[in-house]
């Protein structure tokens, strides 16, 4: 992420005097109301997705032929799509797919990428050269093309989608954790642990890993956003989970043909999608800024 490093300097400059005041506040206050609004929205969407089938909403796949492309009103809180299916139910069902792909593939990419990055940044030498070159090559490959090809030829199963999007996330996590590890490995506390006779494995697990977790988790929020956008794009092209299953990207695409008569069919899921990505980006950004202030005090 080329955008991250220069931002650090800018944030430090911008943060100037007000930060001194902010520092005395407890961490949860320092994150600000925007952070907690974003987190509340994410929590709401996640809970809705988890409880989805238990909620007293209409069946997302049942067509109400009496109202097709209807606006919000009695019976259907957010209206219906062009086949007369309840929008709210489909949004909740879509959240299950979008969030599963977002969270699961990020978890996969994060675990594999962080492990590689830790090893590369700590062991250095030939291993690092091989890892970095491989990650660069994967990054150079057109990601969406790979996803499209794999899902077309292997299948549209959600597990395959999670696996391939997760695989593509490995280089980003590898780079972040390697950069953090490189910096940490030079620090005094690592030297102190080594002087006290700690082995490499112990240093990696007990000294370095705990310090890598925070930046990696912050980065993971962005990863979830990217993974959800990738699934959305796939669904938009009709190559994610097959219909009639709902996915936010597919819902936006389905409403495209009725943009002139019933624009809300497309625009409602588009708004929900935007709010979720925005909430993920915003919370990652706030966490990063607060972490930087703390880091600069060390």
């Amino acid at each position, binding site marked *: 992420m080329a955008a991250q490093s220069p931002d650090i300097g800018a944030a430090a400059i911008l943060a100037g005097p007000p930060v001194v005041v902010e520092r005395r506040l407890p961490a949860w206050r320092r994150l600000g109301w925007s952070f907690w609004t974003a987190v509340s929205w994410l929590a709401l969407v996640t809970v809705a997705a988890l409880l989805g089938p238990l909620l007293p909403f209409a069946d997302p796949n049942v067509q109400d032929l009496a109202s097709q492309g209807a606006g919000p009103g009695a019976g259907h809180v957010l209206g219906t799509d062009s086949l007369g299916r309840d929008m709210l139910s489909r949004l909740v069902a879509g959240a299950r797919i979008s969030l599963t792909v977002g969270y699961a593939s990020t978890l996969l990419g994060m675990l594999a990428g962080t492990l590689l990055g830790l090893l590369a940044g700590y062991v250095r030498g030939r291993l690092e050269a091989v890892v970095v070159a491989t990650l660069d*090559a994967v990054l150079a490959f057109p990601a969406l093309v790979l996803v499209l090809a794999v899902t077309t030829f292997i299948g549209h199963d959600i597990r395959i989608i999670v696996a391939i999007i997760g695989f593509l996330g490995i280089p980003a996590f590898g780079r972040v954790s390697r950069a953090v590890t490189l910096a940490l490995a030079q620090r005094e506390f690592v030297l102190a642990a080594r002087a006290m006779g700690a082995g490499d494995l112990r240093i990696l697990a007990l000294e370095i890993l705990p310090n890598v977790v925070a930046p990696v988790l912050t980065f993971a929020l962005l990863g979830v956003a990217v993974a959800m956008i990738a699934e959305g794009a796939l669904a938009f092209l009709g190559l994610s989970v097959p219909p009639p299953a709902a996915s936010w990207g597919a819902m936006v695409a389905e409403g495209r043909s009725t943009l002139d008569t019933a624009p809300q069919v497309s625009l409602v899921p588009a708004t929900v999608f935007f709010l979720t990505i925005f909430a993920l980006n915003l919370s990652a950004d706030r966490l990063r800024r607060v972490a930087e202030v703390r880091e600069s005090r060390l």
Partner: protein
Amino acid sequence: MLAFVRARLAHLLPVLFVVTCFSFLLTSFLPGDIALVMAGPNATPQSVAALREQLQLDQPLPVRYVDWLGRAVRGDLGRSPRSQQKVTDAIRERLPVSLELLVLAELIGLLVAVPVGVLSAHRAGGPLDQAASGAAFGILAIPGFVVAIVLIYVFAVQLNLVPATGYTPLLDDPLANLRSFFLPALTVGLGEAAAYTRLLRSDMIATLQEDYIAMARAKGLPTWHILLRHALKPSSFTLLTVLGINIGRLMGGALIVETIFALPGIGRLLVESIYARDLIVVQGVVAFVAVAFVLVNFGVDLLYGVLDPRIRHGRAVA
């Protein structure tokens, strides 16, 4: 400079090898019999056998790769079994559309980002900065296909200014051509503008803290002169890197945007070939796209060396 170029070349060749390898393997690692998949449901055993012969599936994988690579570097990426068109001809036909989209989108991105980024940095924390930062942050959270839908809704459905989809070749009718590119270029360009504004703003703020800027101010040089002549160039490296990455990426066409707006570019070719299971075309186009991406970034790396002598001499790390 020569040593610098040589060092970059040494890095380029292995990446090119891995990337072409990957493009080739993409189609070989798919499960099942490729010939059977490609021939489709109505294939006769004879046509499958002919296809297998054409693809040389009886040969071992490394032999096929070397053979494919050898022909690829000579400009032969094979022939589509579906349309009988040469892959290179298909790419040549589609490339101008993707390039036009690329140029227009990057122009929109830079024309917005450079003035807004410079002015935001000049009055960091001011009203323009806050508005621009907020807008950029919001735009970056909208997936491309959602931007496209919203733009179609506003400009084509509500205002009826431009066609929602469709394509007119440049030479047939330049004005209609620009109209057909307006929405797709804006869709891509908006995202680029937001990203570039953020990059340029933060780099520029850092540059404006430098001593030589204070020196220029002390000499009484006009503000615009300091901003554009002294601060812009050294602040544009991150912007240039990301511009390079984006150009490399867009060389392969914008898959989603070209599909939504029905532009016959490289991205559309790829999506069509994937839908049609035309593996020869997929393989050829993917190789082309990946190699183009790597080469554009190689060019950007060299450009750094020209712009900043410190990088050429290996004292600064970009």
